[in-house]
């Protein structure tokens, strides 16, 4: 059950990322353990399978709560609110995947797509035109401007070392990251 009605803005589910790396992230999530229980990171969940809703609020630059506990194989609806002044991300992945995602975010910042407090869509368009890299959706993350809310439904695997993290340059490294504890 939803504790809070949220509107998913058209852009809220969009993730800034280079196309090249996205399949890697998804691949990591779908191999290994085969289908059924998801892979190393889990997989997008179906609304009908949701058994728990977890609210996470993003501030500058930290989450509340800073750790979440879910059951193995559980499908969770995340309701994410950006209550800060800066753009933040909620991204479920392994530490290595977060590390790989960081440079892409840095490129977005260097191209003026990612401003501290907003996303410059014109710059994103220009970057897409000139470099072929642009915005696309990734099911394991939400990128929210200040004041925005969004939802993400995720089915967790049985075993994984997972973190939810913000890969805006500097945010992960200064501590905007939390552990996902998987329990029986």
């Amino acid at each position: 059950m939803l504790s809070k009605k949220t509107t998913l803005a058209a852009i809220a589910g969009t993730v800034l990322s280079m196309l090249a790396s996205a399949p890697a992230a998804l691949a990591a999530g779908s191999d290994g353990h085969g289908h059924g229980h998801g892979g190393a990171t889990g997989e997008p969940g179906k609304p009908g399978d949701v058994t728990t809703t977890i609210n996470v609020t993003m501030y500058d630059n930290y989450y509340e709560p800073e750790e979440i506990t879910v059951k193995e194989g559980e499908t969770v609806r995340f309701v994410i609110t950006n209550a800060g002044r800066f753009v933040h991300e909620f991204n479920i992945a392994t530490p290595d995947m977060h590390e790989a995602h960081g440079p892409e975010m840095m490129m977005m910042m260097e191209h003026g797509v990612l401003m501290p407090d907003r996303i410059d869509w014109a710059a994103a368009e220009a970057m897409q035109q000139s470099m072929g890299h642009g915005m696309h959706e990734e099911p394991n993350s939400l990128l929210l401007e200040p004041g925005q809310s969004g939802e993400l439904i995720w089915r967790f695997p049985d075993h994984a070392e997972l973190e939810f993290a913000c890969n805006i340059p500097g945010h992960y490294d200064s501590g905007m990251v939390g552990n996902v504890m998987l329990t029986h």
Partner: protein
Amino acid sequence: MLSRNLCGAGALALVLAAAGHAAPATAGEYSLTVDPITVRTSDFSRKGVGFNSGSPGPVLRFKEGEDVTIHVTNNLSEPTSIHWHGLILPYDQDGVPGVSYDGIAPGETFTYTFPIVQAGTYWYHSHSDFQEPDGAYGAIVIEPEGREPFRYDRDYVVVLADAHPHRGHRIMRNLKMMPDYYNRQQQTLFDFFRDAGDMGFDAAVADRLDWGDMRMMKTDIEDLQGFTPLINGMDPEQNWTGLFEPGERIRLRFVNASAMSYFDIRIPGLEMTVVQADGNNVQPVKVDEFRIAVAETYDVIVRPREDRAFTIFAESLGRTAFARGTLAPREGMTAEVPELREPPLLTMADMSLAPGMAGMDHGGMDHGSMDHGSMGGVTHTMADGTVMQGMDHGSMDGGAMDHSMHAMGAPAQADPFYAPGSGLMPAAANGGKFLSYADLKAQAPLYEDRDATREIELRLTGNMERYIWSINGVKHADSEPIRLTYGERVRFKFVNETMMTHPMHLHGMWSIIDNGNGEWDPIKHVVSVAPGTTVYMETEVDAPGQWIMHCHLSYHMDAGMMRKVIVEGGPRAAGVTSPVSGG
């Protein structure tokens, strides 16, 4: 009056431990003594000045929102004072003798009381004579009221200093007598013949004559050499060590309490995330190396994951010495200590931008058409006020290679806060990211962004030959105060016409550097201005009373690079001219 009520006589006479770097104190009331001490390093021992019988003094730990009372007892045979560097407080608590108050006479106790209205890493030091270079400095750590915008498992104060075997008085006397007294990197006759071989005899002679005309040398990066850099009072051999568990986030609170020395700081094997500059939170930026000006503070977070030691390596700007400390999982572990890099040489490019020295011939230079328009608040300005649109350095490169550009063969990213082609452009030893002022963005701006109400130009000027340092060509003793009006927003234009880098420090009010980030321009208390550059900073004039602004290089300040600043109007204007009771 103190709003905070302290119980028990114990708290009243609380004396902070002099030894060690972390002496947690009960909030509210503190006692410090200013004492004659002996500064001991592996290289020398000499008499000096300390707090609570030590140098550095104890770390003062305050909490945002509290009112502090600090009793300072002078055990010296000369007057003393303590200035709370970077703290926003009533002017009569600022601790500058002759401006804030009369100072503290020998044997007297002065009691400071002021509210703590900020958080972060700061420091305190004597503002009397040369007591600070002699050892009278310490760190201040202020815990914020709310949550910090970052996370860490433990924190360490890392106070850098440039302890010299000579006491400040003697150093100043020597510099006045012979400005290159402490310059050990002077070019030799051997260098001359090498240059003559490289560029021909006539060119080598002309080069020497040019430099002679300017009353300076290519090696004038540091006018004080021969010091022993310290971290928390310990030299490289004594190796200050901070412990950690692998995987922990460690906050390092770097304070440069040096009299004269800038440092380039790195921790080989670890990236540093800069989260605070001069006590104010900045939007986190990951770097491999950063330069800390005299009197600045930077807080960084590192996360060593391996079970091994890491070296904190801080090279002086002139590469004449380094401070060294260690982060380690266990006491006694060490990591490799890097070699000092090649010293930079000032290039003629630097000097051409500083024609305020003796008559220099610009005829040989091509003022071309480089576009500096995108550099935020930094431009390169000639002494006559014309803005340099760039120049061709090709004809000047003769013997003066830009060594920083050649470090490890790494292409240096141009930092707009250094003159193009200057020998001072920083470059990370590992070829990675070197922090620039341009990277600093306020995490939470303190003031609404608005246009300045007026501009004040301050040319940083000097005569190295006579060791006179001044502002607009006038030294402090001969100058009129800068008068500001409460409520205005002043834009200061610093034009550095000298060959030295000057860390400019305004007391009592924040310095907002115009680094092109608009509403996110960072809030600092020290603005470092490199040779041949112009840097703008803005100040919201919100602190009535009388203050000072000065170069924080101890001997430059003493030589005259300082101004009194009077803020007229505002809530406490009436008190400005009345004498302040001390002791």
